[in-house]
């Protein structure tokens, strides 16, 4: 080990860098060959099928069907982001204020759902929330409600499933950001006469702005591409863009339309990322360097 490092250290600086570039090469080749290249194929189909030109992109402006799917996707993504951020912020804040030991446990609980597939989680929600499910049966048993609450197989169900899936992303992003905040600043604020609410609103909250922005963008972008959750929890009536694309590829065979939407989604996401990188120092987002 030490022999090897001396050998490398003896190399001139340029060769040294070349070696690292070489180590990157297999991953780069894989990415280029199996990801970037087919992606260009997708873009190509979107401007060549069924006939060359921008006819498919015109549908963005003219097709009520496409617009409805886009609107549904946007609305659900915004709502998911909003709810996730509020719930996630509360949890992240509680984690930051808890003792070290408790923080570890809380982190474990946040991460735990990550290890379960989205498919399984969606079906679990059905079992819990359907009209004869665990929750409705319990509520009716206690006499709180007479008719079962419609919590799944509709847009409410989609939101519940998506917020659940997105929470770890929001919590971890916010928590990483909050860890970088010196809590003594809060004490100082209190010492200077601020009440607990004012100390939070005027000292803590502004310092978490990068975290909030980062989590918002992250959650929003991932929400745009949800596929399994709406398909299972939506009762067949929530057609989001990912499923819409799958439909065009598998069923209606309008590959031009499908690839156009995939391309549009891809470009939108990259656009949002670019905007975020302009506003935010991405490195600072995940805690102090």
């Amino acid at each position: 080990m030490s022999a090897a490092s001396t050998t490398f250290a003896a190399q001139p600086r340029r060769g040294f860098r070349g070696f690292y570039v070489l180590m990157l090469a297999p991953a780069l080749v894989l990415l280029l060959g199996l990801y970037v290249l087919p992606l260009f194929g997708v873009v190509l189909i979107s401007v060549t099928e069924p006939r060359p030109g921008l006819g498919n992109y015109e549908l963005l402006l003219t097709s009520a069907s496409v617009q409805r799917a886009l609107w549904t996707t946007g609305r659900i993504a915004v709502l998911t982001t909003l709810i996730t951020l509020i719930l996630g912020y509360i949890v992240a804040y509680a984690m930051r204020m808890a003792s070290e030991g408790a923080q570890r446990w809380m982190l474990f609980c946040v991460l735990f759902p990550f290890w379960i597939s989205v498919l399984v989680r969606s079906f679990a929600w059905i079992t819990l929330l359907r009209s004869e499910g665990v929750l409705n049966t319990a509520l009716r048993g206690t006499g709180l409600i007479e008719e079962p609450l419609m919590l799944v197989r509709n847009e409410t169900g989609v939101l519940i499933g998506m917020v659940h899936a997105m929470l770890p992303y929001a919590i971890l992003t916010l928590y990483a950001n909050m860890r970088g905040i010196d809590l003594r600043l809060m004490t100082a604020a209190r010492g200077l006469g601020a009440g607990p609410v004012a100390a939070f609103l005027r000292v803590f909250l502004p310092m978490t702005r990068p975290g909030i922005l980062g989590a918002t963008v992250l959650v929003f972008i991932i929400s745009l591409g949800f596929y399994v959750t709406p398909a299972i929890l939506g009762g067949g009536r929530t057609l989001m863009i990912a499923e819409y694309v799958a439909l065009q590829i598998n069923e209606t065979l309008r590959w031009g339309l499908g690839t156009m939407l995939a391309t549009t989604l891809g470009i939108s996401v990259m656009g949002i990322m670019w905007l975020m990188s302009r506003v935010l120092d991405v490195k600072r987002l995940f805690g102090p360097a």
Partner: protein
Amino acid sequence: MTQEPAQDHLDALDHFRERTEGRVIDRRGFLAICAAIGMPAGLARLTPAAAQGTNRELVLVNWGGDAVRGMRAHFVEPYIRANPGRRVAIDGTGPSSGRIRLMVQSGRVTWDVMDRNLHTALELGRENILEDIDYAIVDRSKVRPEHANQWGIGNYTYAHVLTYNTRRWGGRVPTTWKDVWDLRGFPGRRAFRRTIDGALEAALMADGVAKESIYPIDMKRALDGHKAIKNQTIYYNAIAEGQAAFRDNEVQLGLLLNTRSWPLKNDTNGVCDYTFNEGIVWVAAWMVPKGAQGGRAIWEFIASTQEPQRQIELLRSNGYGPVNPAASAALPEDLRPLDPGREENYARMLPGGVAWYAEHATNALQQYLDAISS
């Protein structure tokens, strides 16, 4: 049909074996896989066909689950017994139009026989991605005239039937689609599939359109029907999902395939039931992708499935209706109520419009999904 987990596991093994026995994986690749998973090649009697120099096998593609077991037992095994040395592997991953089109366009056709339906055969045949049925070997007279065309030959009948929970309305049960659209008279959650076949016809019948005038389908009228009930309706994707929704009492009435309504009735001890009244009856069909490698054996296999006895056995195990009228006529007493093709059942139903679907299915599906997606 709830499957035991162990059964699923066996299915997966079977599936793997069948895929490896074909030309999907050659001998060297096969041995490499065995080595990689640390298993001696002889252990599971996994013997790649290519390695033994036997006849090339056929690959039959259907929709998985019980269909794999049923078709293996009643179509494939009798065929192999009659033709020793031949092999037929069943791939249950589903011959969807997108996959067929991709396979034929890529020029690497690994499927031989596909279990689909007549209107898709008409639609894809016109796109020139299916082989013509060889009626020199396949017997056209063994199906009804409306159950055969240039690119597809019927293999079994099935129907979209009105399925309901018998306990929900104090002894009353829905008997027509009008009842399903009667939200006051029959309150409860509805179920329809997220595909158009059956769903459009049901909406039109509920709106008072006579059976003879259903086709060509008035899309606006059918979609208005669904818009009126969609808030009370679960639109399921997989057919098994619909079956489970009935079983778990998530829905109380709606449309289901007769092949699922029958096991549903058994599973629930008759709490859920169905009627052929106003059902929409279809024919599944064998189709062959353009450029299939199986040659004459493909047509000989298809011809072998026209045997009445084999179709009767498939009805018994899977609820698939015999497409050969001779088989329907020869049914034992206990199977008659299950068979959509049996004259007294067939007469109460609407034969699905093959020609209309071949032409309009794609656009209509998109319109339907747009209408039900709020």
